[in-house]
């Protein structure tokens, strides 16, 4: 039996005195695609933040790669987190943000050219990210997260702003990522994306489908 990538045991989180997660237990193995589903406020994003080491647990344990997640460089070299839209660096084009990711990580999963092609951004490569549409900026964020090497992808509503056609393509890209040995945990409201994954509802921590 493979060692799980993520092991969450009896996790409870309270925010401002309100219980957001209660007694959640979850295990995610290598090459798994997991979708956190549920209504707004059910704790999907909070769980992702716990897995990223950005939200301390009130009780219970969280383990990622066999250790509690920590907000440090060694952790982030293995984990790519995509939550709200990042603050883009001033003076750089969309393409140069991808160049930056390639140069920082040294051995990317794909070339910048390939990423621009794959995420339909070739025409807008020279535009500053703030001049892109909401959907294009989300595609750029996804391209940056998928271009760099990683073992675990944590995505918070990756379908945000994307058209139906690209959502389908994103599902394929995430499946390919898991085939390559990566693990994906995403919070999503998109039935198509969730349908490709093992669905987990944070409200009760059980496998929903």
């Amino acid at each position, binding site marked *: 039996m493979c060692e799980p990538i993520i092991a969450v045991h009896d996790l409870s989180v309270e925010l401002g005195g309100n219980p957001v997660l209660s007694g959640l237990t979850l295990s995610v193995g290598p090459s798994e695609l997991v979708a956190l589903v549920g209504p707004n406020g059910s704790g999907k994003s909070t769980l992702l933040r716990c897995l990223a080491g950005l939200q301390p647990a009130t009780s219970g344990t969280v383990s990622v790669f066999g250790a509690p997640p920590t907000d440090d460089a060694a952790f982030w070299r293995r984990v790519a987190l995509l939550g709200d839209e990042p603050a883009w*660096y001033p003076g750089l084009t969309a393409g*140069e943000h991808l160049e930056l990711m*390639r140069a*920082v990580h040294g051995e990317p999963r794909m070339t910048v050219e390939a990423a621009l092609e794959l995420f339909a951004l070739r025409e807008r490569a020279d535009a500053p990210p703030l*001049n892109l549409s909401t959907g294009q900026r989300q595609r750029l964020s996804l391209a940056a997260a998928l271009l760099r090497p990683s073992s675990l992808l944590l995505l918070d509503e990756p379908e945000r702003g994307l058209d139906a056609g690209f959502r389908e393509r994103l599902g394929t890209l995430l499946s390919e990522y898991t085939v390559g040995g990566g693990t994906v945990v995403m919070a999503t409201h998109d039935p198509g994306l969730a349908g490709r994954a093992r669905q987990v509802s944070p409200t009760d921590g059980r496998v929903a489908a």
Partner: protein
Amino acid sequence: MRSRGRAPASLLDRYVALFALAVAAAVAGNPVSSALAGLAGRVEVAQVGPGVALVVLAYAGFVAAARAAGPVVVTAADAAWLVLSPLDRPGVLGRTGRVLLLVSVVVGAGLGLGLLAVLGAPDQLVWRLVAALVLGVSASAGGMALAVLGQASQSWHAWVTAGLVALLVVAVVAAGGQARGVLAAVAAAPLSAVTATASAAALASTLLIRRAWTALARIPSRTILAASTRAGHVATATVTLDPGALTWIAEDNHWRARNLRSRPWPSLSWPRSAGSPSPAWLRIARRPGRLAGPVALAWQDWVRAARRPGRLAALLATAALPAVLAGAGGAPAAVAASVLAGALAMAAGAASGARRDADNPSLARLAGVGHRQALAARALLPALLSGVWTATALTGLSLAGRLPAGPWWLFGPLAAPAIAAAALRMARRGPVDHSMPVIDTPGGAIPTGPLIWALIGVDLAVLGSLPAAVALVSQPHEIGGFLAAQAALGVAVLAGYVHRSRVA
């Protein structure tokens, strides 16, 4: 219909306003009159040129700021409801016009006093003071009127640009000493000539204001709306008391309007020697997150700086200001403060990456670079720019004969690491803490939150460049010890700051 539904001022309102003015005059009367008495007499001819240059630069800065602000702006509500309506445009914008006039009068009075302080008053102090005030107010009101005309038509906009360039040329010539004879004649001009000049300036200014007032009706709605949106952002940032937001508004607006071309990142991998194994340091440097990663991350600041060469050149040109200030009779402490402020401004302008990562660390996490390595790499550009600026400024002071003989320029590169650390500390500071106490003093209440926020970064700059600052103030003939102390302190401050820094 009025754009403001305010009730007319009552008798009590007028009494309170007059009483407040009388109290202000009684309190400020004595210090102001003694300061004005100090203006009487001739000034040293050598100080006139640099002094005039500073006054002219201040005036050019005022006109440039007015033009950058709009200057005709209205509140968000007026912009939404009144500008795009068939209402009489001068009626809608009249209040803005009066505010601009008031601002011009206040700034102009300051400029006039500055001019009198620089040129001196050989005789008839009161009349020369009146003439200087008229000249200053005429110049600032005329400049503001030109800025308004520039907002209304493109041809006036070009004239304002030409005027600003001409002012810069005048400042350079005045500071350079080429116009010493002319300036000496101006300083010794008889009162009749001064009166004639002030009257002509007042007449020209009145004509420009008249023209600008009628031009209010012709200002295109889109320029008023754009300026008002900009002012709205500024107001929001001011109301929430988060001045850091202003930098991003200006920065993002600039890049949104630019046409850029993507460039590949420079290769940061060293060629591998065939056959022989690489040395250990090279293997470590090649590992992601060790050297190549942080440098690649910090390269963003270099790209940004290279894409604004005009701004960089303008900032570097300000390295002449400490020499001009010293030439105008500025005290050594003031000159040292101007060197420190310029160096810090230069470095802080090149720390946008650190500022953005501190505001929102999403991209930094995606990059997966250790925050200490990233900070060390991001210190390179601010250190280089502040080092070059300070070395240039100190060379200028040496050439102008304001410093004793010696390699003073070396303080630039030696203090640069500390200044870079200060710029990074400034860039990474959080928002203003409004929960800090407010201290009541006889001069008014002082909110400590914004005060402490403003001092973050400046503290490290002062501490880290203390040997250079002490040397500049005391001006010893032997500076070897100061240079050695500065070299050690500069490196220690940067190393200490990077080592003690925490994840944003």
